[in-house]
């Protein structure tokens, strides 16, 4: 078992820089999730750690060993691919034992490792089947089993659940989480662009954008205290509402008026050192934090209301501004066209300067 | 515009019965969603309505016309396929007008119909492009446009959003809903296995299982008042928890003890005519209805806690029973292994007899 260190890691494909110098420390036994929009370099980073892509610059160390030029098979990592990459011509058992067989481990040891992994993942009944005869979730489990068998220091997952349907995805998510508890001590690095997965699985989330790290932190830390508008928008579902605003006063907090919402004013309890009166800025408020009773009240008209049972999502706009999303469990009566009032509680709102940085 | 009636509709492929005799009335202008697990016959039913599959038994009528043997083209239906089925070698405009052109409609009329559809769907700018040059969402819109152009009595959608990614799916869902408002009066039948779509779009949901209708009703009606355990479990996300129980008393409601939860007893305000003391039954409670303060209290230990920001999902079990899911917005401190108490409010719980029927 081992931690992992990236120091100024860079990657370019020919003239194109894809990773711009990433520094990251991962503790032994941590579950780290890389998130970010498509094309931001998550997979590339993961594959550099695995040794499947060459490292253009910087150092990758696993444990205390610098592994830049070490063969993938010898880094002590195991990877679970998005498409599982099971060998279709081998049975589940052969798939799982393939790595050990290739490296000449004794048969007894291999059998034991396979049995152990099969136990953990409840694959015993499937050992003699070929991948084609398995369901998506079972294939996923075999792919994980193949990783477990090799008893690696670091597990790497590249969007392992994105090929599963919604329900199965939830189930497998829980299973992976359980697995991390069971294999306590294994370091896991997990790539996804599904932020629910990130929130629920991670000890630590790494938010990437365009080859740079935007923020690193525990999931709820990112949710509660994002560094910038990008992270704030990316973490949390439904997505945070952003409202155009302008600073109108700075005493005892920052007072802004919402320029597209009838100039409604609201005072946020933040210092806002970076802002001066008259600056354009953005106010962020999560759909679930809008309140019928509390804070600066807006008058909106329902575009579409979706009722999911306990919760409702209401998409509503004022005459001037773009549509806001409101999540509420008291919205069952909202219908297209009705007008209503909703408040922004100042203590739940975030303020971002024009360049997207959080004003605290 | 026309309603639709199915009377004892059956379908078999050779010896295999796929649809076992379905009766269904769809009002003119209604938005009906077929849901059900994979393979339950949703697509088959839809394709029988479209005329793409033969009807083995029973009658399908559109409006007042029995259409069992009518050509697909002459049923007054239009279908939007899961894969959109756009003709890749034709521009958007040609795609939309193809059906009319082939049937010899005058050019002026065609142009008008296309223009009208393009307006509704904001496709004007794309008319000269080929499908390959469109994004997923745009293709989806063209596919719908092609349906609109034919001005059908009934629109048929077969999982039209399942090829889109999560974010786009939400957006298109809202758009389809808006479209139904705009084309007020068109009957729409929509197949999905995503229950969120079903909940948010439908006027009426038809829940299918294994070729039979389990329940028909408005979305919130199904949520609030499911007829049986299958529907209760299928509608609502996360899925309802089911607890094994046994009837212990029947006065002033039904009293049950939860056999796998330390025989905790709880009295539900239902008549329960079908149940007698001693019967095994199941108690259903939705994750979002579990309460920290209210009802029959259980002691559970956290297996996995997922924190999504405002809400948390807690998967927790007692020593005896299977794991329960609890949705709460006050669970941030739950960690693997901690014990806690949670209550089942009797007025929110459902009772199902051993054969899965709801005991009211």
């Amino acid at each position, binding site marked *: 078992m081992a931690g992992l260190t990236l120091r100024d890691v860079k990657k370019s494909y020919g003239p194109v820089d894809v990773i711009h110098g990433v520094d990251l420390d991962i503790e032994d036994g941590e579950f780290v999730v890389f998130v970010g929009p498509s094309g931001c370099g998550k997979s590339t980073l993961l594959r550099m750690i695995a040794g499947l892509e060459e490292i253009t610059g910087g150092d990758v160390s696993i444990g205390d060993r610098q592994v830049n030029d070490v063969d993938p098979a010898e880094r002590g990592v195991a990877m679970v691919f998005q498409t599982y990459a099971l060998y279709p011509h081998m049975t589940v058992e052969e798939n799982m034992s393939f790595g050990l067989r290739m490296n000449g481990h004794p048969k007894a040891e291999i059998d034991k490792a396979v049995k152990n992994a099969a136990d953990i993942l409840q694959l015993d009944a499937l050992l003699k089947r070929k991948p084609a005869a398995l369901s998506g979730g079972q294939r996923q489990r075999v792919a994980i089993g193949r990783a477990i068998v090799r008893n690696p220091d670091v597990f790497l997952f590249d969007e392992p659940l994105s090929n599963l349907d919604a329900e199965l995805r939830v189930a497998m998510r829980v299973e992976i989480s359980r697995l991390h508890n069971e294999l306590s001590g294994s370091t896991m690095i997990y790539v996804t662009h599904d932020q629910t997965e990130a929130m629920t699985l991670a000890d630590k989330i790494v938010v990437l954008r365009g080859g740079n790290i935007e923020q690193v932190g525990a999931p709820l830390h990112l949710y509660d205290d994002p560094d910038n508008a990008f992270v704030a928008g990316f973490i949390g579902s439904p997505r945070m509402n952003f409202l155009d605003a302008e600073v109108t006063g700075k005493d005892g907090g920052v007072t802004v008026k919402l320029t597209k919402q009838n100039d409604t004013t609201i005072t946020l309890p933040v210092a806002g050192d970076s802002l001066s009166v008259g600056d354009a800025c953005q106010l962020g408020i999560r759909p679930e934090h809008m309140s019928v009773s509390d804070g600066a009240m807006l008058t909106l008209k329902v575009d579409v209301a979706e009722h999911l049972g306990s919760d409702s999502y209401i998409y509503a706009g004022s005459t001037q501004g773009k549509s806001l999303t409101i999540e509420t469990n008291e919205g069952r009566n909202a219908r297209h066209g009705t007008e209503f009032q909703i408040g922004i509680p100042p203590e739940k709102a975030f303020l971002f300067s024009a360049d997207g940085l959080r004003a605290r | 515009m026309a309603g639709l009636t199915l009377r004892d509709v059956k379908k078999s492929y050779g010896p295999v019965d796929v649809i076992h005799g379905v009766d269904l009335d769809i009002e003119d202008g209604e938005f009906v969603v077929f849901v059900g697990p994979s393979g339950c016959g949703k697509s088959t039913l839809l394709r029988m309505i479209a005329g793409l599959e033969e009807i083995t038994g029973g009658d399908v009528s559109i409006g007042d016309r029995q259409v069992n043997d009518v050509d697909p083209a002459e049923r007054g239906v239009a*279908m939007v396929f899961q894969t959109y089925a756009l003709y890749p070698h034709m521009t958007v405009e040609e795609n939309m007008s193809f059906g009319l052109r*082939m049937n010899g409609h005058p050019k002026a009329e065609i142009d008008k119909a296309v223009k009208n559809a393009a307006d509704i769907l904001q496709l004007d700018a794309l008319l000269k492009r080929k499908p390959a040059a469109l994004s997923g969402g745009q293709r989806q819109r063209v596919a719908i446009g092609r349906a609109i152009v034919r001005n059908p009595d009934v629109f048929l959608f077969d999982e039209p959003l399942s090829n889109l990614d999560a974010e786009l799916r939400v957006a298109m869902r809202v758009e389809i809903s808006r479209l139904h408002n705009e084309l007020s009066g068109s009957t729409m039948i929509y197949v999905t296995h995503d229950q969120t779509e079903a909940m948010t779009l439908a006027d009426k949901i038809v829940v299918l299982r294994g070729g039979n209708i389990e329940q028909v009703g408005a979305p919130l009606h199904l949520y609030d008042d499911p007829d049986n355990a299958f529907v209760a479990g299928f509608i609502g996300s996360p899925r309802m928890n089911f607890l094994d129980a046994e009837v212990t008393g029947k006065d002033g409601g039904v009293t049950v003890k939860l056999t796998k939860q330390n025989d905790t007893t709880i009295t539900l305000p239902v008549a329960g005519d079908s149940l007698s003391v001693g019967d095994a039954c199941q108690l259903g409670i939705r994750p979002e209805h579990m309460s920290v303060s209210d009802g029959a209290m259980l002691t559970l230990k956290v297996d996995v806690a997922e924190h999504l920001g405002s809400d948390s999902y807690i998967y927790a079990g007692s020593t005896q029973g299977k794991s329960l899911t609890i949705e709460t917005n006050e669970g941030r401190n739950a960690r693997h292994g901690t014990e806690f108490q949670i209550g089942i409010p009797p007025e929110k719980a459902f009772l199902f007899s051993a054969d899965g029927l709801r005991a009211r």
Partner: protein
Amino acid sequence: MFPKPIEKSSRATQIGYQAFLPLVLILWLLPLIAVAVFSVKPDADFTNGNYWGLPSSFEFFTNYGRVFFESDMPRYMLNSFLITVPTVIGAIALSSLTGFALGVYKFNGNLLIFFMFIAGNFVPFQILMVPVRDLTVSMNLYDTKTGLILFHIAFQTGFCTLFMRNFIRQLPFELVEAARVEGVAEWRIFWYVVLPLMKPALAALAVLIFTFIWNDYFWAVVLTQGPDAQPVTAGITSFNSQFRAAYHLMSAGSIVAALPPVLMFFLMQKHFIAGLTLGAVK
């Protein structure tokens, strides 16, 4: 990618590979290169035993001139075109019909008919020789291009049907269903929906059949004789007997005969390779 991409190996390996490639290629094509060199040599080189050396003089025009002006080669070439082109068109037309029928419709016997085409296509064609020759003779088509064309079309239809049908199978069936829902007649579906989508397959097949037919020798010998109707493959043997032991002329003749399919291959390379895989590997 397997084997390991060379750009991930050391510089020396890369250079080694780059240098090795042309060498191997030359070895691989050695016989052809030799013929090409033969074809520009003067007669004297052969009498002097200079078979494999460089040409003592460059006789391109003399040699090829003789091929074109002192033999029937031009006629044979023309025949080949007149046989190959109609065959390509005919076989493709027939097989797009059969391919469509077999690929789109479910009916009893579909698979059976399909298998009939495949099996017929793999039959050693010698077994057809006697009856087909007879048939051709009795239709008064012996030693005519038409006789050869008709047979080629029929025989190639087997292969083309296999190819077309598999290709149509790969097209999304929803396209056909969408058109049906829109009330488009079946033959219009074929013409307006399926055929345009088959363009790549048509191109690939056209190239493939062109080479097959151009290179056919057996049937040319069985069904035709003489420069009236015989294609260039048969012509080349007769050309060669005219110039027996005149290696330079035989080479030039062979090159002329081989050129059209080679050109075709280079011009339509993409389709050609696509064709091989489409048709064969499904």
